[in-house]
């Protein structure tokens, strides 16, 4: 098999896996807060989280590019203090993907938290069980379908991401070239055979992942009925 192809596919799934893990870690506290707070800033935060759903990916990508460029104060600070350059780098496309897939993790988790009966949280409180322990022993185990949906949607969405990654990361083989960009690149070079190879593999894998989720969720639903 073409080494370029393998390298690009591995990179794509690496980015998707890392993005999903980061999103899960960030998403649990954020969606917990969104699900249970009455704070006034909630609406603003919800709007910001949902922005990537409607914003053209190139807009987000453009601002990230400007923001993280070493000539910008923020980008310059990261560059000189942490030796971290977020434009045209692997770390950069991770940051871009995390921001862009944020709603795909937050929304399922938030509705997952909302679906756990309030009396379970109240019962835990009357038993003196701490909030953190309640989160890990009561809430999260009772919202597995939401966690699964969040992870899978974020993963699949990152695999298919194009605009942000292209703007922030460019097209550097083995560093920032993800499968969707490779397809574009190959089509431009009139190499339809390789483009097709990428496209078909993405199609098949995405289909398989989603199918698995639906099957697992059906099992969860059946378990709840019995």
């Amino acid at each position, binding site marked *: 098999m073409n080494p370029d192809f393998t390298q690009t596919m591995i990179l794509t799934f690496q980015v998707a896996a890392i993005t999903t893990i980061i999103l899960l870690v960030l998403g649990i506290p954020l969606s917990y807060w969104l699900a249970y707070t009455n704070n006034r800033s909630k609406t603003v935060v919800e709007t910001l989280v949902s922005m990537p759903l409607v914003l053209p990916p190139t807009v987000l990508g453009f601002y990230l590019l400007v923001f993280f460029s070493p000539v910008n104060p923020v980008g310059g600070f990261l560059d000189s203090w942490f030796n971290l350059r977020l434009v045209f780098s692997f770390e950069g496309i991770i940051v871009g993907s995390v921001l862009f897939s944020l709603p795909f993790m937050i929304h399922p988790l938030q509705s997952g938290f909302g679906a756990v*009966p309030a009396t*379970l949280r*109240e019962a835990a*409180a*009357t038993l*003196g*069980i701490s909030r953190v322990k309640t989160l890990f022993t009561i809430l999260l185990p009772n919202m597995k379908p939401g966690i699964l949906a969040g992870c899978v949607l974020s993963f699949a969405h990152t695999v298919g991401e194009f605009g942000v990654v292209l703007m922030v990361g460019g097209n550097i083989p083995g560093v920032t070239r993800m499968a969707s960009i490779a397809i574009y690149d190959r089509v431009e070079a009139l190499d339809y055979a390789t483009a097709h190879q990428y496209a078909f593999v993405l199609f098949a894998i995405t289909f398989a992942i989603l199918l698995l989720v639906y099957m697992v969720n059906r099992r969860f639903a059946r378990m*709840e009925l019995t």
Partner: protein
Amino acid sequence: MIQVHVSKRLHTAEGPMDLVFSGTIEQGEFITLFGPSGAGKTTLLRMIAGLTTPDSGTIIVDGQPWFDSGRRINLSPRRRSIGMVFQDYALFPNLTVAENIGLALPREKRGVIVGELLEVAGLQELAGRKPDKLSGGQRQRVALARALALKPTILLLDEPLSALDLQMRLKLQDELLRLHQRYQPTTLLVSHDLSEVFRLSRRVFVLDRGEVTRSGSPTEVFSQSKISNKFRFNGEVVHIKPSGVVYIVHVLVGQDIVQVIASEREIATLKVGKRVLIASKAFNPLIMPLDE
């Protein structure tokens, strides 16, 4: 001793309602809060638990303020010594019976206390089961055992028996009494079942539209209005038959047909299909136990 003086404006389907409660409860007492639904019983329980914040007032338990609007004290439910049984039991569905009961306990004490509670509540056989594999009565027992695990000062029971059938209810009432005698928590029970009030509690507060209308021992509270020396039934006339100088009227009461003798003058006001009240002085009733 628990001193509760609280008020809160509630927004109900029939408009705003002010819940006002003032009362003192002795250590180890078994109190019921009785009243129609929407009277504020559950809200009162939730205020004592710390799940709902009163607009103003104080809740003082054994001299320690749990809530004091004047001094801006409001202890979180986690820091109040309470055990609560919710109407829907609120068992943790992902944990087994033993884990539900033991979750709040420190690890080193867990085994002993859970074992004891499982035994007292007759749940040993079910220790490893998940709540969805339990019957209503079993769930209720798990919820009660869980609420007692930390030996709380106050036990709050929000209509814990209302979802069960009569036989199970009677059985669990006995069990509740037994557990109360054994652990002696100060207990507040929300109920709208009179027989429960009589069986379980020494003292009852009757709530109606947010106010305590009466309080005292169940016999004192209910002797004027609810307890009478008459039997009265509502029924429907299904048949009228002349028999010599009198008439025999068949009345459907519940699922039973009752035959009542009526004079010609009484018959003039009756016809088939009419709703009627049958009443009798209870000076000579037949009373016999039912087989269970």
